[in-house]
């Protein structure tokens, strides 16, 4: 037992001490947060001042397109050809051309000419505004008050509530939950592949280094394998813990500053929509809609706050460790059987395939969390670490979780046992192209 601790200690510290570990642990969350911040920053950056010259042949929009905070519209009396010809003489950034038959079916397209690409926000705004105007225009043409239509529309908020057999009920916040579940599932998938491959590479390194024969004259091969697997698992757990702590610190910092700005931006966008609605719209509806959209945003944040993160983290931990033990034993067996990196591919495929299947399953599980794919996927140890995590935040009966965990434990005991038998023969086998058939034979060899 003492020797296993020695092996664990070595595997753990040799990795923890590496610079790459430190870099990954610190840089990981920083990169994620940084990427996130960059995305927000970039999306705010493309709002360069736009001066749009409108050539409106239909005359439906003449002096009737409202400006927003960065787009200004000008309506000089000029023909399209002339406008294009003089484009570079003027300081307009875009020319908006509206054909005469815009309001008829089979209309010609509206065109936006530009010097520099104006960005998505501009065309988005243009389309919104014009569609709205046309809509109101057509309603008016048919003698319908737009308010009547608007009043007829009512946004509805659907709350999902599950009723259990014993009469308990639980409101589930499906959107946020399924997102969290999916993220956890993907994270497990990534962790299992990365750390499984590390186990494999480490086993192979010891074998090709020929250090393994010295070690197995002191400890049993199984001890070496288990020690290595546990040591690397601890590295994974450490890294995960560092990430968890760092990201929670970072997100608090980010949400204190950036998030405030994001909410402010969101509000601004809502107001922008209001500008569009302003024409001929009624105040109380406006307020209602405003309240509606705010409510939705707040709700998602509240959903996230209301989530029991300790439960999710605990389950994440259990399924990470269980799934890792299940798969890394298989990876160790592969590592022991092969001599060179180039042989890895053919043997890795069958092992990573179930993981990829689990990942694909989890997409369908998100849509149908209690279907048969979800059920069986979360029971079978090959896929349960990923699939169960997707299901968990949406509420899974306790008996299913327990069965799944028991099956996973039984699964990793079986794979570890099998892997141990392949491993002890494999690590001493050199210069031989191995096949699956051969490896299965090794299982029956006497230690």
């Amino acid at each position: 037992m003492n020797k296993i601790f020695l092996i664990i200690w070595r595997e753990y510290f040799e990795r923890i001490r590496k610079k790459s570990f430190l870099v990954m642990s610190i840089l990981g969350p920083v990169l994620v947060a940084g990427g996130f911040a960059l995305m927000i920053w970039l999306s705010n950056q493309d709002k360069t001042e736009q001066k749009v010259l409108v050539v409106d042949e239909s005359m439906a929009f003449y002096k009737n397109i409202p400006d927003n905070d960065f787009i200004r519209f000008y309506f000089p009396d000029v023909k399209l050809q002339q406008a294009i010809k003089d484009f570079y003489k003027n300081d307009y950034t875009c020319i908006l051309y509206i054909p005469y038959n815009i309001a008829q079916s089979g209309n010609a397209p509206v065109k936006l000419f530009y010097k520099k690409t104006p960005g998505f926000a501009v065309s988005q705004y243009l389309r919104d505004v014009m569609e709205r105007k046309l809509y109101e225009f057509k309603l008016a043409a048919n003698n319908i008050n737009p308010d009547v239509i608007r009043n007829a529309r009512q946004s509805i908020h659907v709350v999902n509530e599950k009723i259990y057999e014993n009469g308990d009920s639980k409101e589930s916040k499906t959107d946020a939950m399924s997102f969290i579940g999916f993220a956890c599932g993907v994270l497990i998938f990534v962790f299992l592949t990365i750390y499984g491959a590390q186990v494999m590479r480490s086993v192979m390194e010891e074998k090709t280094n020929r250090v393994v024969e010295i070690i197995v004259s002191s400890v049993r091969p199984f001890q070496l394998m288990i020690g290595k697997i546990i040591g690397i698992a601890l590295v994974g757990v450490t890294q995960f813990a560092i990430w968890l702590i760092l990201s929670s610190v970072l997100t608090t910092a980010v949400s204190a500053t950036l998030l405030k700005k994001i909410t402010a931006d969101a509000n601004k966008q809502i107001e922008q929509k209001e500008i569009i609605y302003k024409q001929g719209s009624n105040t109380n509806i406006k307020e209602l809609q405003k309240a509606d959209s705010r409510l939705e945003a707040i709700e998602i944040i509240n959903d996230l706050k209301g989530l029991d993160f300790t439960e999710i983290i605990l389950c994440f931990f259990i399924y990470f460790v269980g799934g890792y033990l299940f798969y890394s034993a298989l990876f160790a067996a592969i590592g022991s059987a092969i001599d060179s990196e180039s042989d890895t591919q053919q043997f890795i495929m069958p092992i990573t395939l179930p993981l990829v299947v689990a990942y694909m399953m989890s997409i369908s599980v998100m849509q149908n969390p209690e279907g048969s794919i979800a059920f069986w996927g979360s029971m079978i140890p090959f896929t349960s670490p990923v699939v169960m995590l997707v299901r968990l935040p949406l509420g899974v009966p306790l008996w299913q979780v327990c069965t799944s965990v028991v099956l996973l434990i039984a699964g990793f005991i079986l794979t570890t046992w099998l892997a141990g038998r392949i491993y002890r023969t494999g690590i001493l086998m050199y210069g031989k192209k191995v096949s699956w058939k051969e490896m299965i034979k090794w299982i029956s060899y006497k230690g």
Partner: protein
Amino acid sequence: MSLLSVQNVSKRYANHTALKNVSIEVPEQSIFGLLGPNGAGKTSLIRIINQITAPDEGSILLNGKKLAPQDVSRIGYLPEERGLYKKMKVGEQALYFAQLKGMSKADAMGKLKIWFEKFEMVNWWNKKVEELSKGMQQKVQFIITIIHNPSLLILDEPFSGFDPINANLIRNEILELRKQGTTIIFSTHNMGSVEELCDYIALINKSEKILDGAVKEIRKTYRSNIYDTTFKGNLMGFTNAMWSGGELLEKNSEGELHTVRIKLTANNTPNQLLQTVLPTIEIHSFKEVIPSMNDIFIAKVNSQEVFGTQSNYTE
């Protein structure tokens, strides 16, 4: 008394037999050579003694008791293909392996210091293994093998890969360790080192032991009444005088001085030969040719080869 006794050990793999009913006795405080061509089963036997693999049949006794897992701390093993963790520091690595053999950290530390000083490698302690030359790495490996003061030391091809200076260093350490009571098994192809170092040998070929015993005894048994003699005088006279009792195998003449190798026939003794030739020539030297381990090795392995083909024909 035997320190190690291997009794009727067999080991089979899926498509070949690595060891067939092999038994050897390794006397205490001796140097025991395990000989055999490549693929004969030496490494399989060594792995079984090291408890890396288990025999299908037979048993191994250490000091009269059945080999048990905790006995690994009494055995030191230097494999033929040996390596170290490249990225790990020399000192930490040596400490790690010593602890794996069951030594306490403090004990290992103390012993390592002594050996590092002895081999003049104290300032390597904090270097990574990959920074060391091959010869330096070999010294580290040797220290790791003997650091826990094993009563049985197993060296698989210890001199392969060692440069002459290190090989000599290791040779001296082996002799020194035996003096202190260690029993040493080593496998080798180098017959010169067998004659120089080994007290006993076992020859394994095609999974079977075909010869074992004390080196001196074996060489005596295999001597075939062949003598080298140098003399001054008439070569014809010499051959005529001895014609009835011996056979001339080789001759080499330099002027009046002749060196010949002769094989005595039947029960003729060297004394009888000398009596007959002495009147005609002047003897400068007369020496029995004892077959080298190399000769015995080749003869034994080849004879089995011939036997093997014959038996194939009869099938």
